[in-house]
């Protein structure tokens, strides 16, 4: 029963994922005084791209074509480890967050390889920047997870330590049980969301200036169905990080309420990203590590607080 519920939630998440990007665009348009693209634009784009031909550079190999597929599949697989709408993932096991983190890492690795495969200096630059951000973001994610795990152990959570336990109403419970420091993890996850999805202030997804891009420059050479996979993969990744953030905030609720509020939570995250992108300029590239470092120190601070109890 529980597994079927999860499958339904999972399909719902996959179907709604491109909508979040529409919400971001709409919020940004409103701030700029424009009407903006249709909410469903990304659906149209993906549909259109799926039926387009693909242009391959002369120097590219199968690595280039495989990149977007691997990246998309790893994002979808990582999402399948998350609790969705209050339902625990049937795949959950003790320590599955490590698998989740490295599935995302594999997706990034495939994207970076595909970018390097083109031999274009722009894509090489983007790949180097993406690799740097990935390397910086990973320890921050694990510091945050460690803080959650230590709290769970000291509070004596009976079930195994998986994403489905830690991001499923656990954190608000901990806040109320004398662990308010975990609230700070919301900030950490928020920064990670911006970094991993290459949003302002880390990267500007709408710019046409290839020298300043991080993620977008790596996918410049993709076209047709592969470009659709790239776009859908990023949409799923955004959904994944928004779900993690929502999972930190939402308390335990009845299934229908939890489903509704977690989807709403993702949309709120998307709207918040839209607001941040509208009111803030990009950071200079060499300041970005400082932002990730800030999130890392906050996560470390939370971890210390949980350890010294």
């Amino acid at each position, binding site marked *: 029963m529980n597994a079927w519920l999860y499958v339904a939630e999972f399909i719902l998440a996959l179907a709604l994922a491109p909508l979040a990007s529409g919400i971001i665009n709409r919020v940004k348009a409103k701030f*700029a005084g424009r009407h903006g693209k249709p909410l469903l634009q990304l659906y149209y784009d993906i549909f259109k791209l799926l039926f387009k031909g693909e242009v391959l550079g002369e120097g590219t190999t199968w690595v280039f074509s495989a990149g977007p597929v691997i990246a998309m599949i790893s994002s979808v697989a990582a999402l399948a480890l998350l609790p969705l709408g209050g339902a625990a993932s049937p795949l959950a096991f003790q320590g599955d967050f490590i698998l989740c983190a490295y599935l995302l890492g594999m997706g990034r690795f495939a994207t970076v390889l595909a970018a390097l495969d083109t031999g274009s200096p*722009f894509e*090489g630059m983007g790949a180097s920047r993406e690799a740097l951000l990935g390397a910086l973001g990973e320890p921050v994610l694990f510091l945050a997870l460690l803080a959650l795990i230590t709290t769970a152990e000291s509070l004596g959570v009976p079930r195994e330590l998986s994403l489905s336990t830690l991001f499923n109403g656990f954190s608000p419970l901990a806040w109320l049980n004398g662990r308010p420091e975990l609230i700070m993890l919301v900030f950490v996850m928020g920064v990670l969301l911006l970094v991993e999805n290459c949003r302002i202030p880390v990267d500007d997804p709408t710019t046409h200036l290839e020298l300043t891009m991080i993620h977008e420059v790596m996918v410049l050479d993709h076209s047709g169905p592969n470009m659709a996979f790239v776009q859908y993969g990023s949409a799923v990744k955004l959904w994944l990080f928004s779900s993690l953030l929502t999972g930190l905030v939402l308390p335990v609720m009845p299934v229908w309420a939890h489903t509704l509020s977690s989807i709403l939570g993702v949309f709120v995250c998307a709207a918040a990203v839209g607001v941040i*992108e509208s009111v803030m*300029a990009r950071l200079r590239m060499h300041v970005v590590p400082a932002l990730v470092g800030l999130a890392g120190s906050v996560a470390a601070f939370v971890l210390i607080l949980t350890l010294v109890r």
Partner: protein
Amino acid sequence: MFNYRESVAWNDIPLVSMDALCSFAVERCRRNWRLLALFGVPSPSGTEVVCLLADASARLLDAVRALPGRAYDSMTPQCPQAHLFERELFETWGIRPEGHPWLKPVRFRPAEGGKRNARPGPGQADYYRVEGAEVHEVAVGPVHAGVIEPGHFRFQCYGENVMHLEIELGFQHRDAEHLVLTSPARLVLPIMENMAGDTAIGHATAYCTVVERLSGVKVTDRAHILRRLALELERLANHTRDLGAIGGDTGFLPTSAWNGRITGDFLNITSELCGSRFGRNLLCPGGVKWDLDAELCRSLAKRLRAAYRDARGSVDVMLESSSVLARLTGTGRVSFEDARALGLVGMAARSCGVAVDARMDWPLCDLDNGTLHKRMRTTGDVLARTLLRSDELNDSAASAEADLMQLGFSSGEEACRVSVPEAMPASRLAVAQVEGWRGEVCHVGITGKDGSWLAYKVIDPSFHNWFALAMALRGEQISDFPLCNKSFNLSYCGHDL
């Protein structure tokens, strides 16, 4: 030496040896004169090189000419501001400046039939290269992702750091200076207005001033006020657009979007003057073609106030955002020494603390400059160039409004156009320096024995300032290039001519 508002007889310009010309220019530049122009003029005994120098403190110009033959010792090592002029001489007239540190073509021949000397085709040039296993080269353009003009940029990078940037332009060379000499008279003004499309009024003003100075025609005050109004409107529109573009490049959305609309408001005011949003067909030698009546002045002043209020608000939103200021501060710095040595003009120079502004240094008329001041910044970074634009926005809006008021009050008292004699006096040279929105637009006209053009030289501010962008990028991050580029916003076709 001669007064900048007067023309000088070609035969009164001393003919010296090329070495003397070079040492003369080098020595003057050391004493704070600026190299205004260095170009070739055809003569029966071979190509004559004319060197024009300007001293802003005394408002004096000086000219010498020489017959260099095929080669001479380059003055660029002692006087860096000559570097592009000497490359141009080499390319156009085949006169080789020996010892020039980086002698290569400035522009490329149009695809079909080069009219004069054979020039290399696009991209056929050597590039400066840094060797090393960890050094990588990034080439951008000439075809870009945005809808902009063609230009090729080569970065020598060590990681994210730029060690050297080489800018290669000249892809849209139209041989415009040659077109001026060969076109029917009625086409000359449109050619001038298209030297750099966003400085139509600046270039047209410079051309008209050259013709008027050659013919000795005095233009009425009303025409001067109308010209100033048009120039300041051009400045307002372009500064507003640039400030929005700087916002766009930092990823700051609101100002970028709003300024796009507000730019249109300023352009629409210009279109009320003459029917063209870019001020085409407004000016003519002898004055301006269209006058304003009192009622139109009032309504335009009202619209100007509203557009300025919107622009001010939009720019303030950006300048009060700490994340934007953090992005702009210290990015793309050009030092005062470099700015002086390279002979930068306009905003780019003023943002480095070099006090050059043709509106005050070389006024076109005796009218009071009113609210226009020489705005200065000293840090030379993107922030300085942004704040400078923001300051000039205030000045230009106040000046344009005051001019509209005055035009309205004195409507009908004075004509806005006087007639200019058909034929220009023979064998004379005149210079015009007009502060376009980017900087000093300099035109030099020389008439031949029959009173028609013997040579016409156009120097757009971008010609001087492109190299400043290369200097700004030294030691910077490659990801800051688009922002630095936007903060200069130089013209490609103004350079390519």
